[in-house]
Each structure stands twice: as structure tokens, then as C-alpha cells.
């Protein structure tokens, strides 16, 4: 199982490094969205819950782009058939795709969050890096798990690009709520305020529930 997952992750990373399909698109989308928010809200700097909301809405929408692309090569170039013929555990595909999506999200955030701080965050707001990293990590796990499941569900439909965002966004509303509520005090104007740790519990619970659920049902999406 571990070897299979490693091989599949290596394959996806190699594809991404050769074609640069998902990560640059997600990153450019994030920066464009920041610019849109700058003019849509007509504010040159943000703080508090408004800043948290803008950051999380942007990251979630960028993640949807990644979900849309996640299984396209598998479907269009026979990756599913090849995988099903191989004598390996089918859950390995789920684990590897979730890890790949998680990796994409982390790389995108590595650039998008500094860009957000530079472009939009009010100077002086937000000096609580460890807490922010914890929120980002927990939220990313949830997005990766749900995104992999929905990506696999949607990729076999005719209206792939429409169905995946429609299904993923309502499912990700709890992540948006918890992540934005947890991030808002970190971006408060006069330096970080007290951090509401209960939202981390909600995020962890969400990750756990959907992780187990996706683990249980993913095999049924692969049968031929």
C-alpha cells in the first residue's frame, strides 16, 4: 500500500512538474481574485474578519480549480483503466490523490498567503504565524479529502466542470466557517487577539469524519 501510494504520488508530481497545469493556475487565480476584491470592496487594506473572509473565499475557489483538474489525466488518458488492472489496493488511489491535492494547496498557499499579506492586509495586523499555519494545515486536509472525493465523483459526468464546483462548495461551507472564524482574530488590527481554539476542533472533526467517509466509499467510484 505504502509503495503504491508513493509511486502514484511520484507520477502525479512528475506530470505536474512537466506540464505545470494546476499549481500555477491556482496561484494566478488567487492573486487575480485578491485584485478583484481590492476593487470590488474598494478598500486598499483589510483587517479582522473581512481579511479572513477574503483570504478563505479565495483559497477555496482556487482549490476548486485544482479539484477540477485532479482526475482529468486519469480519465482522458486511460489512467483509471491502468490502475484498475494493476493488482493493488484501490484505496491507494484515494490516498495518493488526496496527498497530491494537499501538496498543491500547500505550495499555492506558500505563495498566495504572503501575496495576500503584501497586497491587502493592513500593516500591523496579523503577527500570529504558528496559529495561522495550524488553521491552514487543518483546513487543507479537509479540502483535500472532500476535493478528492468530489473530483472522482464528478470527473465521470458529462458536465464535469459545472458539477464539481456545485457539489464541492456547499460541502466546504463548514471549512469556510471554521477557518474564517479562526483566522479573523489573527488578522485583528491591533495585533493578534485571543485565538479561538474550538474552531480547530471543528476543523479536525470535519477532517476526521470526511476522511473516514471518503475512505469507505471511494472504492465504489472505481468499479467497472
Amino acid at each position, binding site marked *: 500500500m505504502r509503495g503504491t501510494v508513493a509511486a502514484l504520488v511520484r507520477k502525479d508530481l512528475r506530470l505536474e512538474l512537466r506540464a505545470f497545469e494546476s499549481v500555477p493556475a491556482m496561484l494566478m487565480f488567487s492573486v487575480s481574485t485578491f485584485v478583484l476584491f481590492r476593487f470590488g470592496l474598494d478598500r486598499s487594506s483589510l483587517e479582522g474578519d473581512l481579511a479572513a473572509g477574503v483570504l478563505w473565499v479565495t483559497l477555496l475557489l482556487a482549490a476548486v480549480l485544482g479539484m477540477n483538474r485532479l482526475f482529468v489525466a486519469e480519465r482522458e488518458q486511460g489512467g483509471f483503466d491502468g490502475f484498475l488492472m494493476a493488482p493493488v489496493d484501490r484505496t491507494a488511489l484515494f490516498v495518493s490523490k488526496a496527498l497530491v491535492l494537499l501538496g498543491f494547496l500547500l505550495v499555492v498557499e506558500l505563495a498566495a498567503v504572503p501575496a495576500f499579506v503584501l497586497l491587502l492586509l493592513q500593516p500591523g495586523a496579523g503577527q500570529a504565524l504558528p496559529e495561522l499555519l495550524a488553521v491552514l494545515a487543518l483546513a487543507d486536509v479537509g479540502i483535500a479529502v472532500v476535493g478528492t472525493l468530489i473530483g472522482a465523483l464528478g470527473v465521470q459526468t458529462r458536465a464535469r466542470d459545472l458539477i464539481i464546483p456545485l457539489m464541492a462548495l456547499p*460541502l466546504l461551507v463548514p471549512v469556510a466557517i471554521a477557518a474564517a472564524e479562526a483566522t479573523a482574530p489573527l488578522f485583528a488590527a491591533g495585533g493578534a487577539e485571543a485565538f479561538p481554539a474550538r474552531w480547530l476542533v471543528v476543523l479536525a472533526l470535519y477532517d476526521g469524519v470526511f476522511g473516514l467517509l471518503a475512505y469507505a466509499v471511494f472504492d465504489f467510484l472505481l468499479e467497472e
Partner: protein
Amino acid sequence: MTFGRGLRALSIASVVLICGAFALVFFWAPNDADQGFVQKIFYVHVPMGIVALCGFVAGGIYGIRHLRTGDRAHDLRSYVAIHISLVLAVGVLLTGSIWARAAWGQWWVWDEPTLVSFLIVFLLYACYQPLRFSIEDPERQARYASVFAIVAGAFVPLNFMAVRMADSLVHPRVLGTTGGAMPGDMRLTFLVALAGMACLFVTLWKYELASKSASIQLRSLKRRLAGEDDLAPLQRSTAPQQL
């Protein structure tokens, strides 16, 4: 397959319970001290909401049974449960809006967790039919729809919890541990209305199941009589067309 068994008794029971509930609502239950007559929409709105959510979860449970057994009849049951719950959910949003306008002065109130969670659940389930419609292979359609029904069914309670934590307490917690300060006659009326709505749901569910399975059987009989060639090909559809 006989989905129609017991339909007559169920239909009579729903008519009696719903007529009884309305009689109690209009002639027996007292007017609310604050809101007056308009509060009576509560006896339609809340039972409808509870039954719709239970229907969504039931769709998920039939989804699990479909995946475990491979019996397509369970997919049909899951589909019909979610289908009727969606119709009820539209009713819940409409009656809730009317009630909010009368009681709080606005058509929509965002700081109200129950309303917001219900809207999110509704938006999610609104994708169920498009998902089915965009998968052509009937076997795959059934399998994928069951996966969606299971995930969405588990999402319902989790979503309610998350939204409720981002909290306020405008909405009365009718059956909660602390709320529910309903006088006895209101409570009885509410319970009769809830039973009536549940009965109506089961009746409609069985009617649609009976009708769908009858047309599936009719088609297979036609095929046996006339042969595959004379039969019009199946149109794309959201509903299961084979068992």
C-alpha cells in the same frame, strides 16, 4: 416488485392526520402571545423541515444499502426519498421566509443558524438531480448517486453543528433540552402535525415508488412481447429506469 402494498391505509391515515392537525391548529391551539395568529405557520414549517431532513438522511441510508447489496431497488428508494425531500425543502424555505418576514420583519435573517444550515443543505442536494442526469450509464449513475447520497447524508448533522456554533439564538429551539417551553395544547397540536407530515411523506414516497416500478415493469413486459428493436430507446433521465 410490489411497492404499492398498504398504500390505501397509509393514504387514509395521512388525510385524517393532516385534517386533524389543521383542525387543531385553527380551532384549538391558542394564538401565540407575542406573534398572534401568524405563529400558526409553525405547525406547517417545522414538521416539514424535520421530515425533509429525515428524508435526506434516509436517502443516505438506502444509498448504503444499495452499495452493500447491489440491489437497484434500494437506489430507487434513495432517489425517491431525496426527490420528495427536495420538494418539501422548497416548501420549508418559502414558509420560513414568510414567517421570518412576519416575526422578525425581514424575509431572510443571516444570523440564524437553523435557516442558514437548511439553505446550505438544500443547495447541496440541489446538485443531486444534475449529477444523476449527467451520467449516462445507468449502473454507474446508481452507484455514483448512492455515494453522493451517503456523503451528503453525513454532511447534514455536521453542517448543522458547525453553523450553530457560529451562533445566535433568535430561533426557538422547539425540541431542544432548554427550549421547548411550549404549553401542552400547542405541543399536542405540533406532534399531530408532525405525525401527519411524516405520514404524508411515506405515502408520497410509496406512491412514487409504485409508479416508477410499474413503468419499469411495463417496459420489460413490452420488451418481451415486441422484442428489443420495436422499443423506443431510453431517454436520459435523472430517475432510475431499470431495476
